[in-house]
């Protein structure tokens, strides 16, 4: 038997046993076996179109294998048995390929790509929506400010016209009223004197009548003055009312502006809260599906390999686990890091160089930092 070592197949006498853990250290990506690059160079034998993966019957089987596959062969295999064995090996190899691919897909984090793209879309849309909300708020404030200016100008113009009218039309029609006393009647002085008769009694009566007329005129003048004062008081009150109304208008307008501004702020806050909630719900949905897929992958890999895999990849959302195993052997049930130790070292060095170079660090500083991380 020309068994090819290192392909998870062990030979015990004439019995070939599939043992996934036998050559674990020969592969860093998976515990499942893989096909070598050049099967023929590693003693794989091609017969017609079929491979005898790792198996090359050296003699004709004389005893049929048991159903468990763990049985040996007595002295040789028939063609049917060889074909069945080849089929068995082929199916095992296919499962190994599938397990290896799924393992790489899982441990490498490739399955995160679509979810990361979705999360990026959500984040981009969130920024766009946030900008739109901010724009709407700015437009609302602009409208509120401009509307206030227009309304204030319009109202002030109305009151300015009223004040101008009131100033130009002082309502005091009693100001021009003057109570006059008529001229005294003729006392027939000349006529009386022509007959040698004195006019004194006549003059006395005329003076008394004039005095009475003057008293009546004074009373009327007092009445006119009182009415004039009332009219002036009314005009002054009207002017004061106009100013008060204008002050009230401007004050109310300012309060309304404050109210409208507050409404716009509340609307903005509500819109942002709704947006934030929608974004969180979307992200939650994506992460939920990502987690479900990861669980499904892990479950499938476990079923194929018999061990629970460990996801060593980091996702775009920062939910990934730690890096690598530090060169130590993987624990039981864990998938080892895909990268080689050299690649891991190079990666660590690159991570060190980038920030250190950005800070102007020297080569010695880089080396010291690297040694410090490696515990030296």
């Amino acid at each position, binding site marked *: 038997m020309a068994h090819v070592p290192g392909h998870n197949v062990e030979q015990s006498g004439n019995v070939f046993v599939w043992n996934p853990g036998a050559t674990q250290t020969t592969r860093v990506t998976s515990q499942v076996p893989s096909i070598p690059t050049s099967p023929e160079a590693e003693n794989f034998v091609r017969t017609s179109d079929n491979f005898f993966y790792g198996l090359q019957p050296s003699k004709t089987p004389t005893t049929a294998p048991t159903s468990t596959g763990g049985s040996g062969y007595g002295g040789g295999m028939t063609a049917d048995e060889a074909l069945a064995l080849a089929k068995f090996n082929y199916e095992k190899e296919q499962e190994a390929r599938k397990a290896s691919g799924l393992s790489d897909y899982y441990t490498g984090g490739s399955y995160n790509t679509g979810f990361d793209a979705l999360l990026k879309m959500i984040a981009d849309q969130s920024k766009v929506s946030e900008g739109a909300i901010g724009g709407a708020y700015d437009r609302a404030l602009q409208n509120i400010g401009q509307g206030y200016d227009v309304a204030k100008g319009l109202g002030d113009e109305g009151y300015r016209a009223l004040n101008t009218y009131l100033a130009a039309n002082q309502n005091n029609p*009693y100001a021009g009223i003057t109570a006059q006393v008529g001229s005294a009647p003729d006392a027939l002085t000349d006529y009386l004197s022509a007959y040698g008769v004195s006019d004194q009694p006549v003059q006395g*009566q005329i003076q008394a009548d004039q005095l009475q007329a003057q008293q009546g005129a004074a009373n009327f003048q007092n009445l006119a003055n009182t009415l004039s004062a009332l009219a002036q008081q009314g005009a002054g009150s009207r002017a004061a009312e106009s100013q008060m*109304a204008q002050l009230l208008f401007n004050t109310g307008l300012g309060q309304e502006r404050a109210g409208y501004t507050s409404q716009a702020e509340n609307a903005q806050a509500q819109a942002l809260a709704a947006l934030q909630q929608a974004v969180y719900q979307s992200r939650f949905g994506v992460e939920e599906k990502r987690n479900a897929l990861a669980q499904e992958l892990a479950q499938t890999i476990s079923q194929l390999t018999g061990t629970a895999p460990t996801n060593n990849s980091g996702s775009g959302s920062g939910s990934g686990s730690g890096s690598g195993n530090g060169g130590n052997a993987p624990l039981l049930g864990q998938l080892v890091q895909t990268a080689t130790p050299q690649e891991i070292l190079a990666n660590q060095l690159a991570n060190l160089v980038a920030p250190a170079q950005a800070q102007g660090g020297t080569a010695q500083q880089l080396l010291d930092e690297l040694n410090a991380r490696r515990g030296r």
Partner: protein
Amino acid sequence: MAYNPADYEARRRGYTQQYGATSAMNAYANFLSQQRGTRERQGMTEEYNKAQPRVVSGYSRRGMVGPNVRSGLFARGLQDFAKQRARSFSEFDQGQQEQQRMYDLTEAQRLEAFRNQLADMESEKAQTIADAARQLYARRAGAI
């Protein structure tokens, strides 16, 4: 309430026309009254002028007045006539003046009422403009 300039102009025109028509009617009535008073005063003057000679002739027929005759009764009678004449004219003139004052006072009150109507309308217009401005502001701010 929306601002309607046509409404205010119609109201202003109505107030002005009403005030103008009433003022013209009252002014014409006042003119007629003054004219009537003037005629009445002229009639009184003519009557007193005609009465003066009759007063003197009455005392003369009774021999109370004449050349070198001047009785006290004649002097008192003539003074009474002059006092009555003065009293009549004084009362008539005072009556005319009181009537004129009443007219002036009434017209002043009507003018005050007219101006108050216009001022009230202007105040209402300013308030309407202010209300319209606030409504426009509310629409601009999206509150309506």
